């Protein structure tokens, strides 16, 4: 491939600049800690650092920087981490657009990147790279599970909506990949939109039997509150992003009973998860979210590779990562050929436990799901 050729050129340049690595592993975490969406970054960081602390290793150093959710700042920080801090591994990015800005250049410079959250399709298919590991999910996964769930739940006329940007389009594509019923309507809303009266009116008029939406962050909160207020009582399905622990309390009772898909839930029954939930709550005084679990798993994956290989030996370290020989909060966890997870995606329901709104697993949406792009990946 000619593209590869370009990459090789870049790699050589970077290699010349690189100096001999010291003992141990230095990790650069670039994540969103200020401004809008800071909650997600804080959860990833806290989950990651909890695992690091529990491992108690002196040969693992973590440098954390705030990307302010700005792609150009993230790129600067990646440069800083690689050039000045001389890190071996980068991680932490929450948003797909920031990942698209940072990941290709990072792996081209022979660094490892472990994604604790974003999984854009471009990096799973043609743009995959042997040094890029996704420890969360490919962006489509939760939506695919929702589509599959709709089939088993007997929903045959969905109204689907997402913001008008790439992740939104991927989401609806993912849903439709497994969903077999008819579409009552398909809408793209403005990114950052906060009022959904118009969309809800269209849902009401469409004759749909269910609603699937992907509206991350504040958009989802607004949608759910307004949906509950509209008196519509069609079943709603969404991905876990709008129902995670940080957001649920702001949505309140409006979310009760909503089915959502997630690769993690705090009631997944394994010892690692139970210990994680307990120690996270004890340390930070709040329940962990799926982002926190992803941060925690990412750190444990890294630590498991450190036990097996020296990071200076790239091939051995890569093989150790690929083996994914760690106890995941999700139970079974393995990497596919494109270094993306193969894992179960659950269907959860929002419930109330005392004063706190949280989720409970009701079924498995997709079992051992990889992703749709692995075939395009030539490593």
């Amino acid at each position, binding site marked *: 491939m*000619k*593209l590869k050729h*370009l*990459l090789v*050129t*870049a790699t050589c*340049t*970077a290699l010349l*600049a690189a100096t001999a690595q010291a003992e141990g592993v230095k990790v650069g975490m670039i994540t969103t*800690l*200020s*401004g809008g969406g800071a909650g997600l970054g804080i959860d990833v960081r806290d989950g990651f650092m909890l695992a690091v602390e529990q491992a108690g290793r002196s040969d693992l150093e973590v440098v954390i920087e*705030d990307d302010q959710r*700005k*792609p*150009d700042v993230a*790129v*600067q920080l990646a*440069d*800083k981490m690689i*050039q*000045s801090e001389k890190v071996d591994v980068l991680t932490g990015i929450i948003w*797909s*657009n920031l990942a*698209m*800005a940072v990941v*290709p*250049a990072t792996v*081209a410079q022979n660094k490892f990147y472990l994604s604790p959250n974003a999984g*854009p399709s*471009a990096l799973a298919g043609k743009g995959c790279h042997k040094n890029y590991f996704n420890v969360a999910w490919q962006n489509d996964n939760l939506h695919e599970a929702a589509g599959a769930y709709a089939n088993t739940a007997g929903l045959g006329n969905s109204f689907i909506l997402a913001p*008008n*940007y*790439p*992740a939104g*389009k991927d989401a609806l594509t993912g849903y439709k990949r497994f969903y077999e019923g008819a579409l009552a309507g398909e809408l*793209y809303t*403005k*990114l950052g939109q906060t009022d959904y009266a118009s969309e809800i009116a269209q849902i009401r008029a469409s004759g749909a039997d269910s609603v699937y939406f992907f509206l991350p962050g504040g958009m989802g909160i607004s949608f759910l509150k307004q949906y509950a207020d509209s008196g519509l009582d069609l079943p709603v399905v969404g991905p876990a992003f709008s129902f995670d622990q940080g957001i649920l309390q702001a949505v309140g009772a409006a979310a009760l009973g909503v089915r959502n898909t997630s690769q993690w839930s705090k009631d997944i029954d394994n010892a690692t998860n139970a210990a994680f939930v307990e120690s996270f709550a004890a340390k930070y005084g709040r329940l962990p979210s799926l982002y926190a679990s992803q941060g925690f798993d990412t750190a444990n994956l890294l630590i498991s590779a450190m036990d097996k290989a020296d990071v200076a030996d790239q091939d051995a370290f890569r093989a150790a990562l690929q083996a994914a020989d760690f106890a995941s909060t999700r139970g079974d966890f393995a990497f596919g050929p494109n270094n993306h997870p193969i894992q179960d995606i659950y269907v959860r329901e929002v419930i109330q436990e005392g004063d706190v709104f949280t989720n409970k697993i009701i079924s498995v949406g997709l079992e051992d799901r990889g992703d749709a792009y692995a075939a395009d990946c030539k490593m």
Partner: protein
Amino acid sequence: MTRESFLNAVLMGFLLVVPLAAWALDEPFIITLTTRAVIFAIAGVGLNLALGFGGLVSFGHAAFFGLGGYAMGILAYHAQTYTPLMDWPFVIEGTKSMLVIWPVAIVASGLAALAIGALSLRTSGVYFIMITLAFGQMFFYFTISWSAYGGEDGLSIYVRNSFPGLNTMDPIQFFAICYGVLVLVLAGVQRLAHASFGLALRAARQNEERLQAVGQVPYRLYLTAFAISGAITGLAGALFADLNRFVSPSMLSWQTSGEIMVFVILGGVGRVYGPVAGAALFILLEHTLGGLSPYWHVYLGAILLGVVLFARGGIFGLLAGREVAHD
């Protein structure tokens, strides 16, 4: 040598010495950081032409910054995927050469500025501020939904574009290119400020009636200044995209317009080298305050507020005193 030109020399020397020292000490990130300041300075110098010399408070310059970025992104994207930009009526190929990309970025953003300016200059005052903001937002939302070039995800370019005889992936060499562009732009704007056009434009800002009374039409001067201003900011955008090897709609957000404006005001409105000082200080603040606290925006806000309230004329007003009339 006036105090202002002394300050100019110190400033440009500082921007040169810092990365060289960083190069010697093998601190490439400092070089990258300085490069960022230099590119922001170019964008600010561009805006300053409209804002400082013409009195045109544009709240939409991010559109030109982003347009320059996308000109680079699109050309390089087509070059790296080996797909032509256009098949019909004739084939246009992408390119990875800065010497081709820059003129395209300049012309594209200059033409956009000409069109936006021609419409916006029918208004004045607050209305002008707001209509430029509106055009900026239009471009912003357009790029977000422009799925052919990545939409909100933006476009990644794997390797920096090429410049004859230099290795652009080497931070110090890429810095040299940007610094060279800044010097050229500053020299150009300096000449322009002292040329017939500059004399008339700055007179129009001070007193439109006066300019008309000597037989000249302010609108034409404003529009020309706005177009040149947009073109320079567009060039900065192309460099910025190359620095990051990435372009996305965030370059076109209204916060970016605000930031470019901050560089100009922080440095000193209407001083040719003002935005250079402003951008350098801004990057310095961002870097040092960012390390102090996750809530560093509070401090940044307080400093900006202090500059507006107590240091009128920005850094240059503070250090170089009242603007010296040049003749």
